[in-house]
Each structure stands twice: as structure tokens, then as C-alpha cells.
């Protein structure tokens, strides 16, 4: 299924492993859960691939978030070993090491021997003919896939489901980070709404949105928008996406702008959408916005929203992957009536007792 995917030139926002937010004991428990899952599947080892496009699995196991498209990496996990091979220079590894929890060896991207270094570990640990689970195998570029395949004469066992199932269940520490990320997103959206005014051009608005997120400590940011001529999403079509990059057009007085902000904090993404107005919204605009909020609340409570609205959700985790399996998800609602449009979306937690929004208070006013 297609979706929004924008990979920046460089993931260059604040980089940190905050040991108060994610202590070593939390990491140890995570690795223990992985090993228990491996044992349940009778796996002798787990191999995890990640790159800048698909960084979640590798980051979950190592806390390495590939920050350059040329820098994929692998993690090897056995009952007694956790080791990473990262396609970064030794100079970069010096910088990265304090932020990752797996011992790692660099693989210079000019030497291009990532597969050979993985093979060395597999051979050293005697794993080449053992039951090795592989998460991310389908994500590798073709030449790398061709180089990895012969390492395992008996093949590997797909382990994406194993890893994803664990990633989807957020611990209390992870939920705390997600709430923090959501709070930062909420504050940024409020700043963005205050910045919108007639005459402000879209470039300026996007720059300010990026600024609001980065100065709050975002590791990565994406800001998109929707104005009157843009296409509305279709209800139930989770691949439909109504937002676009900015242009250089200036906003007009009274204009409605749907804004979409997603930011990554400490490895965890949060996602928000909202209507903002260049000036005071009209009564009709307020009415549509109110209906959008009501639909969001109904959707959150699990009842079918009324009115001409589109609702779309997708999972949100270390990757912005789609699907409803995730414990956290982005829930967005779009409404349209008599040509007026409105948006509202937030990151929510799916709990057995019902869905909850990940911020303490909702900035629902237009």
C-alpha cells in the first residue's frame, strides 16, 4: 500500500540516548523479550536489516537510526551476543557510539563490504547453517541481498512478524516518550497556528513549523499542508493523503489551511493535523471545524462518525508504517461542507479499555 514517505537528505535533528527516558534496564528487558521470542520460534539467531527508509527494526534492537541514505546496517542477536555492523566510517562511529546500545563495527561505505562483515560474524558464531531469523530481508537493496543470501546455504527464516509484534507493544517507558513527543507536537502546532496570518507565504509557514519542532528537540520533522484546491481524502482509503509540500504562495485573509506535522523525538514519531486560519474563521468555517472535532471524538470512542467526513488512520512507531496492529496510531479526520473543509488528527494509543489520545489536553480550538 502506498503512503507518505519522505526521507530527508540527512536525519540531522537532536540525537540523544536519554538514559532517564530509556534506561539500560529497559533495553535489557527489550533484548530479553526478543530472545524469548526467538526461543519460542526455535531460532538460533536473529538478523535485522535497516536503512534510512526502514530504520525502525534496526533502531529497536540497537538504537542506531541510519541518518544518511548511504548508511544501512545490520544487527545480529543470539542468546549470548548482540552486535551491529553499520555502514559508517570509523570517524562517524566514534560520534554514534554513545547513542547506541549494541557494540558496533564500522563498515566504510567506500570499501563496500557490509555483507562480508556480516558473514564474518555469522561464521565466527557458527550460524551459517543454523536457524537464523531475518527481519528486513525484503528491504535490502538488490546487490546487498545477493551478497547476503549465500552466507546461509539453508536460507533464513522470515522474522519480520516476530520483531514487529514486539515493537507494536509499547512499554510504559516507550509510552512516556510517545507522550512527550506528542506534547512537543501539540506545542509546535499551537505555535504554527499563532504564526498563520494573511500575507504569510507557505514557505515561511513551513520554515516556521520546522523551526518550532527542531527547537523543541525533534530528531526529524515533516510539515505538509492542504489548501482549497487540493484533493480531499476518501473515507476508508488509508493510502489517500490530502497534504502536500509548501509552495511560495502567500496566504489570503480568512483562508483555511490544513496543516500536517510529524516529528520524531528520541526515535519515536508523533503525528498531528489541524485546521488553522489566516485571520478569524467565519461562522461556516467554525461549524465545519466543530463537526470535524465531533467526528474525531466519535472515532476515538469507536462510534461511526456522522456527516461528510473522511477518516484515515495508520500505525505509527519507529517507522511510519501502516496498518492497525500498532498500539499507537495516527487518527485523522477530514470534514467538508458547502465547500468549507476542516482537519483534525492526533496520535492515539489503542488500549484494551478504549482509545486514548497521547496528550493530556486537546488543542481543539480553531
Amino acid at each position, binding site marked *: 500500500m502506498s503512503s507518505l514517505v519522505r526521507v530527508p537528505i540527512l536525519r*540531522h535533528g*537532536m540525537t540523544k540516548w536519554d538514559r532517564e527516558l530509556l534506561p539500560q534496564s529497559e533495553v535489557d528487558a527489550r533484548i530479553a523479550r526478543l530472545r524469548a521470542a526467538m526461543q519460542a520460534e526455535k531460532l538460533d539467531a536473529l538478523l535485522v536489516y535497516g536503512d*534510512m527508509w526502514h530504520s525502525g527494526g534496526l533502531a529497536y534492537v540497537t538504537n542506531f537510526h541510519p541518518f544518511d541514505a548511504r548508511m544501512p546496517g545490520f544487527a545480529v542477536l543470539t542468546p549470548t551476543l548482540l552486535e551491529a555492523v553499520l555502514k559508517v566510517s570509523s570517524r562517524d562511529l566514534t560520534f554514534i557510539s554513545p547513542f547506541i546500545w549494541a557494540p558496533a563495527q564500522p563498515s566504510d561505505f567506500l570499501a563496500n563490504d557490509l555483507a562480508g562483515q556480516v558473514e564474518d560474524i555469522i561464521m565466527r558464531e557458527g550460524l551459517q547453517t543454523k536457524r537464523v531469523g531475518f527481519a528486513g530481508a525484503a528491504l535490502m537493496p538488490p546487490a546487498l541481498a545477493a551478497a547476503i543470501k549465500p552466507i546461509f546455504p539453508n536460507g533464513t527464516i522470515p522474522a519480520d512478524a516476530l520483531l514487529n509484534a514486539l515493537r507494536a507493544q509499547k512499554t510504559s517507558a516507550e509510552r512516556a516518550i510517545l507522550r512527550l513527543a506528542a506534547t512537543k507536537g501539540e506545542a509546535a502546532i499551537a505555535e504554527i497556528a499563532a504564526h498563520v496570518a494573511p500575507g504569510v507565504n507557505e514557505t515561511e509557514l513551513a520554515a516556521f513549523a520546522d*523551526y518550532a519542532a527542531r527547537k523543541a528537540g525533534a530528531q526529524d520533522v515533516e510539515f505538509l499542508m492542504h489548501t482549497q484546491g487540493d484533493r480531499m481524502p476518501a473515507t476508508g482509503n488509508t*493510502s489517500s493523503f490530502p497534504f*502536500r509540500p509548501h509552495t511560495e504562495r502567500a496566504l489570503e485573509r480568512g483562508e483555511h489551511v490544513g496543516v500536517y506535522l510529524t516529528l520524531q523525538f528520541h526515535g519515536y514519531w508523533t503525528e498531528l493535523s489541524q485546521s488553522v486560519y489566516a485571520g478569524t474563521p467565519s461562522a461556516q468555517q467554525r461549524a465545519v471545524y466543530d463537526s470535524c472535532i465531533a467526528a474525531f471524538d466519535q472515532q476515538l470512542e469507536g462510534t461511526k462518525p456522522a456527516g461528510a467526513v473522511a477518516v484515515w488512520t495508520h500505525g505509527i512507531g519507529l517507522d511510519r508504517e501502516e496498518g492497525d496492529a500498532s498500539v499507537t496510531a495516527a487518527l485523522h479526520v477530514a470534514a467538508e461542507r458547502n465547500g468549507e473543509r476542516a482537519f483534525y488528527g492526533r496520535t492515539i494509543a489503542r488500549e484494551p479499555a478504549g482509545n486514548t489520545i497521547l496528550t493530556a489536553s486537546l488543542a481543539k480550538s480553531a
Partner: protein
Amino acid sequence: MTTTTIPANAGRTTAVTVDRAELDRRHAAIRKTMVEDGIDLLVLYSSPLRNYDVHFAAHYDLIGCGALVALPLDGEPTLYVGEEWDLERARRVSPLRDVRYEPNLAALCGKLLRTKNSAMTAFEWSDSTFAEEVRSAAGGSVRDASPTLDRAARTKTPVEQALIREAAALADSSFLYSFDKLAEGMPEYQLQAEMEYAMRKGGAVDNFGFFTSGKHNRAIGLVTDKPIENGDLLIFEITPARLNRNYSAQLCRTMSMGAASSAVKEKFKIITEALEAGLEIVKPGTLVCDLVSAQDSVISRYGFGDYCKPPYMRARGHGFGIGRTDLAPKNKRQLEAGMAMIVHPNQYFPDVGYLALGEMIIVTDTGYERLCGLDRKVYEKV
């Protein structure tokens, strides 16, 4: 102290339009290398990891999972986008006349590659699932044409050069803006946010931006929450991109929080001399490796030759996006008029750590055009 404000239109120093005529110029360059390589149909592919092949040929910025341009040797090129919801925007932004939605890009790609003498770019930037489907639909192996495209894009058109000049102006102005905002105790990431705000407000769409602060820096890395302290050296490698990564301009500079030591100034003079020695020989026909050795020889002459190789150093500069040239010691390529690149003798010194100095240039018929307007000095915040 003077106050630097963000110019309202910082990056828009020229009225640059990427229209169909500009794309025709790029297509003509590609077709020339296609003929040289015996290619009748070129499929230019972009995944999210490498969005610039399609941007170069279609002026469309990918925001989904994939897109491609089918460029025949003769006839109209077609842009295929992988997201139906982005089709309307693609038709708005791309000057190409034929823009379509294709739900299965891999199958289409393979079908196109069944054409005699066809080839594809950026195959290695896809994933293995996509690649297998392409191979299967193509009925065999896939010919990689990334080098064909790289050769076509190595020298920049006048419009591309104008965009790179805009990016360079943004690098200068955002650097000065952040220097003005720099304050003791400010975390690194907040200073970077200020810099990036200036950059993006002026029209940058992204930034290949490294920045590190410390008393003895070993490399330029990603920003952290480390507070900037008195006596820190701040080293920057910032790279605003106008419209797309292909039109990036890098600036490398060093700031000092407080007065810089005489040792720092002395070492900075060495890399300034190295930069000037490198630029001195820039002209069409100069070998890239000579441009590297011109810089290294200055640094070696001062006794730091051991620090001119890995793990301390990798390259003495490079281009951006497609057609990039790495200023690496073994690169025997000749410089050509119209190439754009950063020349950076960034250098680690055992006493003062890593210092940054580098400037963006465009190679001209007789030498080079300096795109950086900043002084070659350590910017001291006193």
C-alpha cells in the same frame, strides 16, 4: 554589535524557473549519453532514498514510495507516480505533458525494460522485493544506467547553476544569522534550529547539516543537547538545498565561543592556505586528484600529513545529487566547466582538534566562480 535578520527573500536572488525548456536541455544531455552508451529507452527511477533522478528529469519531488520517468531516445517522456493521491500535484508541478498514475511501478518498470536497448537508473536504491518484481517482469537481468545519467548531469545547466548560487547565498546568510543568535549555554540543537529557520525561510527545502561543538572536536557530527560553552569551537558543514538535493550548496566554517586561541588561528591559517592552493589550480582539465593533493601538500608541509588520510580524512570535497564528483585522492577525473562542488580542507589537528573551512564553487571556462561570500576566518563570538 550588528543584528542579522533573515532577509525576506534570502534565497531568491535570481528569478529561476524550471520550465519545459529547462527539462528539454536536461533531456538532451541525457539523450547524448544514452547514444554514447547504446541506450534507446532510459527508465529513471526514484525511491525515497534517492529522489533526485526523477526530480532531474521531471521536476517532481517524490513524497510517496516511488516514481519513474520513461525517457525514449526520440519522443515524449512520461512521468509515472506511484501514488494516486499525488497525481494532481504531480501534474501541477511537472512541466512534462504526460504524467500518469501507476499502481505497480515494478511491473511497469519491468515491462518497459523489455524494450530493446533499455536500461534503468537507481536500481540499487530500490529494495529486493521491488527488484525481484522488476527482474521478473523484465524477463531477466536489469542493465544499470546510473553512470549514463551521472555523466549527463555532471555539468550543470545555467538554471541549475542559478539554483546552486541561491543555495550558496542561503548558506552564507543562515550561517551569519546563527552566529548572531549564538549564545553561551544554548544547546547545539537550538542553534541549528535557528540556522535552519533562516535557511528554509529563504527557500531551502532541506539541509545536509552537520554541526558539533567542543573544546577538542574529533569530527563533525549530528547535533545533540550539549550546551555550547565558553572556549568551544563550533564546526559546521551546512548544506541548504534549493528545490532538491541536486541543487545543494555547502559551506564549512568554524566559530569560536569566546576568543579563539592563537593555536586555533595558526591552524586555521594552514587550512586557509590549503583551500587557496586547491582553488588556485581549479580549471577545466585539472585532475580531481591534483586538486586533492594541492590541499594535502600544504597541510603536510606544516607537518600534519599523517592526518590527511583515514580515519581523519576521507575526501577534500564533493558535489551533490546526481553527477557528483568526490574529491578523493585516487580520482583521476578531469574537471569540466559547469561542475559544481564544495572544496573543503576540513582538518583534524592533534592540538586543537577538527577545524572546518570549505566553499562551494562552479568550474568556469577559465577557472572557477566562488559562490561563498564569507570571510575565511574563525568567527569569534566575544
